[in-house]
């Protein structure tokens, strides 16, 4: 009896525990609670039953899922829900309050359809005060069976399809529609996105898409103002054919006219349709954005970083975890990528893109930096400030019913199933594995930093999720989420912020505009508070296939005062409202605020004067692809130019410019005239040396005859190590700016930087020349050289001064600076896979600093260095340019990126393998095909993708080999200010986020704004990186204003547009003392900015 009792009590106790824990876990702990059918009454699931007719081979868009429409159809103040279904009945659920819903599909008359339903848009099309519903249709059906439907609200919870009467019964293969007033005639027009039906060449580089446009282009329907619409697609220039998923409205160029961003699936680039203000649009994405997502899915537009400008977030389908990255197919091979570029496709990479609006009509893609670039096979991104802290968070729905890109299935299993005699393709396809995924919930922590909070916030059920929308479904003042899933019922994520984040305020705003756009669709609302400015716009469609209420919602955080709210109404009128109520829905009525004039943008500090500089030199790279020798090398080393040096070569008091050429391109010398114009002075010696690749150069007086001579470092990777083409060159000035070749001792290192300094204190200039890489043997270090000037002759004294420099690393930059105030220049070095290194000058040698100097674990991919006393404390500080944080290659001290250098298959070639951490474990970054192309012997070991998909280096290679390999680490990629604490100890300060957008290749320290404080100019991008990581192109140059105390602030809208593959920046004084910034770009022209 006692025994039983104790057992019972254990059971009871456990039960209690489970209940209690549950209560604690969900009711109090997590920000969201998953609400399923039993709670909500919404038992709808988008069920896909496959058979020999309905399958992914016959119709590739079978698993794309359904949308969610949210809107108050009966004006009872509770948002109702419309759900689309691929194969079954669409559903309309009436909100009964308290998160309970009633299925009124049948009585409402909105369920039935023949073809597949896709996107839904809730809009009051006839402006009668009742929401109507537009539903898109597609699939392999006759046009008659696939006409889009327009359900007109009969004001009694019933609807009638009047699409035909309105002229909106389009029979295209439709995905979604959005409404806005493109022609500013006051009424709402419709932009419809469609897709072609033939998927055979959808993901193939082809020169021409089929010219048949019927049913498959983007479309524009003009509102005639009388409840009818006219198809004006061709005349408006929007009839472009693509697999378009999602059209979003945004005025990208701030001209007051709404443009349209369209994300296109597969290889086809996205469209940015610029409104020409005359009823037409012009596709111009390549003028606004440097690259985009490879397969663009849903997109979302909002102000992500609280700067008042709308940004664009576009999803792709790359997984975050190593296993799925390695198992699922991705981009084509390198040659396929090149073919796409050659045939005019835009630069696209396999990643979600966050296109950050720079406020002047240009964008920087910073998805990797923000940490939201990899969310697997994704559909809908929806931004909302779920925790009301003042930063908009984002939820991303993802999942695809079958892993159709599973490489083992593509290459080995499907074929073997067929070979085994199974001829029913429908059946065969059903053997492809299924992997439901966890949706991504990212908390925006400000400053472009997003952190994955899915599990912590209660998003715990793996699903195949598609259409998604947020709305305050239970009226408690926070944003709930509703998601349409394939094969499992809809989930509502009930937001608990009203209970759990009580201290955080919010404000919700809707507009009361004028008929025929009473809801103010297209209006931009900007809120200014004590602590931030934030913008959002009124729209009826959000992200993928879905539609929400035309409201905006701003979280405010704690004790944050609203100063004012500005509405830019469609058509451009600006109206300011004050005295808004927090934690309430505010309705702003047109004309009830204060009309304000349009702000005139201030004149930027920098002005591009390249066109009038006279410098017409264009750097031309030769045809060479490092990846053809080493498929796993992480970057090209053959595109390091142009070399650049400045100085007064002819003694006229004006700065002149040397520009080095790539292989087979002669260097040029530009001489400045007293009008500030530059012109070329012919230099036969340079023409003779055209076959060298010039990568570094410096002017200095080597022979003490009073004029500037020139040293040029040869580099690149086009020749095998030790080739005479790596010989550096020295040119002597005849005093008039004409240069003559003079012999240098033989050296054949692929070089990088050339830095003069009087090392031995004898009054003449000596030289440090950095070694970049051992060609063909990356990551083997190259040799660097100390040249001592002995009576006008440079003598290689590396052995006596600093033998360690012979294999110090992959150097990029060096600075001579007296760091310890002993009046002797010390040497500071930067390079890839190495820390910042300091060598103290003893007068006769350079001794590496081995004391604890604060530079421990600073190993990174450092490209640039500059030194000055930034905080006015009397010692010299360092500014060091790193790779930046906007890359899939990431590193932390406890999770370093690393490279293994070894000839694994012992065939005489170096096989570099880079590893990075994936969710806590270090794996090679290369996919199986690349790795086995580099290390061919692995083809016997890695017989299937699966064999490789979980493998670490230790699984792949024997310990004896791993022990012999050269292993180099990187612990940080952040561009950093190293503050000298006065005793040769440095303190690291990560520089502002704008400095982390791309590799910083060159740094200049100067007082830009004449406030007597030193400022910093940084330029750099990186087109050399291997293509799967994707070129670094987000930097436009950074102007960091210093406060004289070591604090820095990035200047927004500076006018500096160093947005090419910038390698060198030099400040020169123009005629008359004008300040000029010169930027040398690889494989492009030279830019000049006046400031």
């Amino acid at each position, binding site marked *: 009896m006692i025994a039983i009792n104790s057992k019972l009590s254990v059971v009871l106790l456990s039960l209690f525990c489970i209940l209690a824990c549950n209560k604690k876990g969900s009711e109090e702990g997590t920000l969201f609670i998953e609400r399923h059918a039993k709670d909500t009454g919404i038992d709808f699931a988008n069920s896909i039953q496959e058979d020999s007719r309905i399958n*992914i*081979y016959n119709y*590739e*868009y079978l698993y794309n899922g359904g949308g969610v429409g949210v809107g108050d159809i009966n004006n009872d103040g509770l948002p109702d829900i419309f759900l689309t279904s691929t194969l079954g009945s669409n559903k309309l659920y009436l909100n009964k309050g308290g998160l309970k819903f009633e299925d009124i599909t049948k009585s409402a008359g909105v369920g039935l359809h023949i073809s597949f339903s896709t996107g839904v848009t809730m809009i009051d099309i006839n402006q009668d005060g009742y929401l109507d519903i537009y539903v898109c249709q597609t699939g392999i059906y006759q046009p008659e069976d696939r006409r889009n439907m327009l359900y007109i609200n009969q004001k009694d919870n019933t609807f009638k399809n009047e699409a035909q009467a309105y002229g909106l019964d389009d029979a295209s293969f439709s995905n979604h529609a959005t409404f806005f007033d493109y022609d500013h005639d006051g009424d709402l027009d419709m932009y419809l996105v469609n897709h072609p039906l033939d*998927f*055979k*060449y*959808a*993901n*193939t*580089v*082809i*020169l*021409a*898409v*089929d*010219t048949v446009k019927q049913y498959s282009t983007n479309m524009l329907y003009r509102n005639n103002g009388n409840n009818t619409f006219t198809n004006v697609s061709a005349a408006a220039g929007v009839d472009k054919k693509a697999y378009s998923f999602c059209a979003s409205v945004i005025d990208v160029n701030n001209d007051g006219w709404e443009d349209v961003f369209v994300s296109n*699936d*597969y290889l086809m680039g996205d469209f940015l349709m610029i409104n020409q203000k005359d009823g037409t649009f012009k596709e111009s994405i390549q003028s606004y954005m440097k690259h985009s997502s490879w*397969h663009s899915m849903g997109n979302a537009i909002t102000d992500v970083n609280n700067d008042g400008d709308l940004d664009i977030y576009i999803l792709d389908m790359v997984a975050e975890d190593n296993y799925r990255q390695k198992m699922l*197919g991705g981009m*084509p*091979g*390198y*040659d*396929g990528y*090149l*073919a*796409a570029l*050659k045939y005019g496709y835009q630069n696209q990479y396999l990643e979600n893109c966050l296109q950050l609006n720079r406020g002047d009509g240009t964008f920087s893609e910073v998805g990797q930096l923000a940490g939201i670039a990899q969310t697997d096979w994704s559909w809908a991104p929806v931004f909302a400030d779920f925790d009301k802290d003042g930063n908009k968070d984002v939820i991303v729905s993802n999942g695809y019913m079958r892993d*159709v*890109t599973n490489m083992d299935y*593509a*290459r*080995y299993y*499907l*074929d*073997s199933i*067929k*070979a085994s005699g199974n001829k029913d393709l429908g059946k065969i396809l059903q053997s492809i594995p299924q992997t439901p995924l966890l949706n991504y919930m990212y908390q925006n922590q400000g400053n472009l930093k997003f952190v994955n909070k899915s599990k912590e916030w209660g998003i715990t059920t793996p699903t195949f999720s598609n259409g998604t929308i947020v709305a305050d479904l239970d009226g408690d003042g926070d944003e709930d989420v509703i998601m349409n899933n394939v094969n499992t019922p809809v989930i509502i994520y009930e937001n608990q912020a009203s209970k759990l984040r009580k201290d955080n305020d919010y404000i919700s705003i809707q507009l009361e505009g004028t008929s025929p756009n009473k809801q103010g669709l297209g209006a931009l609302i900007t809120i200014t508070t004590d602590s931030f400015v934030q913008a959002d716009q009124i729209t009826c469609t959000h992200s993928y296939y879905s539609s929400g209420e035309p409201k905006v919602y701003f979280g405010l955080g704690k004790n944050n005062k609203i100063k004012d709210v500005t509405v830019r109404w469609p058509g451009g009128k600006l109206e300011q409202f004050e005295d808004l109520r927090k934690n309430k829905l505010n309705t702003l009525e047109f004309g009830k605020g204060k009309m304000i004039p349009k702000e005139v943008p201030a004149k930027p500090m920098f002005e591009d004067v390249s066109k009038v500089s006279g410098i017409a030199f264009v750097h031309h790279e030769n*045809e*060479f*692809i490092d990846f*053809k*020798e080493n*498929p796993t090398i992480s970057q090209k080393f053959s595109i390091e130019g142009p070399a650049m040096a400045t100085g007064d070569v002819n003694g006229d008091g004006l700065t002149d410019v040397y520009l080095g050429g790539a292989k087979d391109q002669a260097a040029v010398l530009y001489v400045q005239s007293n009008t500030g114009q530059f012109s070329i002075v012919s230099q036969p010696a340079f023409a003779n040396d055209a076959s060298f690749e010039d990568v570094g150069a410096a002017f200095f007086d080597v022979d003490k005859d009073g004029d500037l001579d020139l040293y040029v470092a040869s580099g690149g990777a086009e020749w095998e190590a030790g080739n005479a083409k790596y010989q550096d060159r020295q040119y002597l000035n005849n005093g008039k700016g004409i240069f003559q070749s003079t012999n240098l001792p033989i050296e054949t290192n692929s070089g990088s930087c050339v830095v003069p300094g009087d090392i031995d204190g004898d009054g003449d200039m000596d030289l440090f020349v950095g070694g970049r890489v051992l060609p063909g043997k990356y990551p083997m270090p190259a040799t660097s050289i100390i040249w001592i000037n002995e009576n006008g002759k440079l003598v290689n004294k590396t052995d006596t001064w600093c033998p360690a420099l012979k294999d110090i690393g992959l150097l990029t930059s060096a600075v001579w600076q007296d760091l310890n105030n002993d009046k002797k220049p010390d040497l500071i070095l930067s390079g890839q896979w190495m820390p910042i290194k300091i060598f103290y000058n003893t007068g006769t040698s350079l001794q590496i600093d081995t004391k604890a100097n604060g530079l421990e674990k600073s190993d990174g991919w450092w490209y640039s260095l500059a030194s000055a006393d930034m905080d006015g404390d009397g010692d010299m500080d360092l500014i060091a340019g790193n790779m930046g944080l906007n890359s899939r290659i990431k590193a932390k001290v406890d999770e370093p990126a690393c490279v293994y250098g070894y000839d694994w*298959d012992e*065939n*005489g*070639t170096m096989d570099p393998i880079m590893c990075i951490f994936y969710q806590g474990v270090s794996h090679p970054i290369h996919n199986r095909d690349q790795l086995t192309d580099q290390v*061919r012997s692995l*083809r*016997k070991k890695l*017989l299937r993708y699966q064999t490789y998909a979980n493998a670490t280096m230790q699984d792949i290679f024997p310990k004896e080999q791993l022990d012999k390999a050269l292993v180099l680490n990187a612990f940080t990629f952040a561009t950093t200010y190293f503050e000298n604490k006065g005793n040769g100890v440095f303190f690291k300060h990560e520089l502002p986020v704008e400095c982390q957008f791309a590799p910083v290749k060159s740094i200049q320290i100067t007082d830009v704004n004449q406030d007597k404080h030193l400022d910093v100019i940084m330029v750099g991008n990186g087109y050399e990186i291997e293509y799967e990581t994707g070129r670094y192109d987000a930097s436009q140059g950074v102007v960091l204003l210093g406060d004289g105390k070591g604090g820095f602030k990035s200047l927004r809208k500076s006018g500096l547009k160093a947005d090419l593959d910038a390698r060198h920046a030099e400040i020169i004084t123009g005629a008359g003392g004008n300040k000029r910034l010169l930027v040398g770009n690889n494989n492009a022209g030279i830019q000049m900015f006046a400031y």
Partner: protein
Amino acid sequence: MSFRSLFFPLLACLLLGAVACKKEKAVVLDDAQWIRDCNKKLTDVIVVDIFTPPVASRMYPYANVAAWEVLVQFNKGYKSMSGQLRGLDSIPQKPDKNNIDGLLAASIAFSTVGQKAIYSEFEFDDFMKQLQDRAAKAGLSEESIAESVEFGKKVASRILCWQGKDQFKETRAMARYTVSNDAAKWRPTPTEYMEAIEPNWGTMRSMTLDSASQFSKRIPVDYDDTNSKMFEEMAKHTKEANDTLTAEHTEMALFWDDNPAVVQNVGHLKMVNKKTTPPGHWMNIVGQLTRDKGLKLMPTAEAYLLASIAVFDGVISCWYEKYKTETIRPVTYINERMDKSWRPVLQTPPFPEFISGHSVISAAATTVLSNLLGGSLAFSDSTQVEYGLGIRSFPNLSSAAREAGISRVYGGIHFKPAIDSGLDMGNSVGDYVLTKIKTK
């Protein structure tokens, strides 16, 4: 050990044994089947692992030479290849024991060499076990089997050593093909835009040729000048041939496609359809012909030997030519200059156009086979049935080679001159192989 764990392996053994017994009968009836099985096994693994035509062309001759070098020591009247093939000498001689079975040893030698070449090594581990089981079933003693295996491996080891010096390893470490911006030069082709394969294959040591350029062909039209009228005419011809295909022509194109991995795309869905390479197709034909004609062991081994050598040397000649000319493929020329949306029937293989590999290979193979089996041998090729294709009949071997050649024009992947020159080159290679090698 429990009854269960004992019972099922026993049952499996019994069942397997029954199957093995059935098979073994065929072996007894025709011992040449062993050599065919060896070659077919190699082909099957090549298909699964996916190899390019040049790499596949190298697998067959070394394995068949290994088998041959064992067999000649057991069959009087046949000559060793030692001293006849470039670099081959010092073949280990069979020990003075009479319990070594020549056919088992030859099959083991073949398999050991084949195993080294492919990726899925376990396949040949299994296969060699099966060979030994078959030998046991046929009555060979345990000791005899062990001795035979040992000798087979010994010969194989010598062959592998010889093979190791054929420049293959060195070509693995050479730079891959870099696409040029020159509009007249080959560029990657749809749909996969693969990197050009084996740009250095012309540096491989052939088995019989004096040099890779020995039968180099003068380019019939100015292939270097894509702006020439002749080039345009040539492209027009291929385009029209491909645009006006009869059912017969389409069947020909697909029948001789022999693309080891045709990638079928439907949006994101990718399916790789695998079949033999051109060398593999011809090895399969050798298997069929020797079986249909009821050839005995040595003539069968001889046919494989000569055909595989001819094909291997043919590919070296051909590849030397391909990367000397770097000729653009029809699809690139036609898409860029004539018709943007034109698509050939076949997926274009990833290497330059001139000279047609299939033409060279087919002509080289049929030249030596005609010599062995007769120039008027009519046959029906049913080797493609297992890859989902039909059966095609030919009045003689050389007509099959001509059809394989012209099928490339119907398939839209070649210009006509590359076929004509390719057949020429193949015939020359085949003839040369016959003059250089004496099997008897």
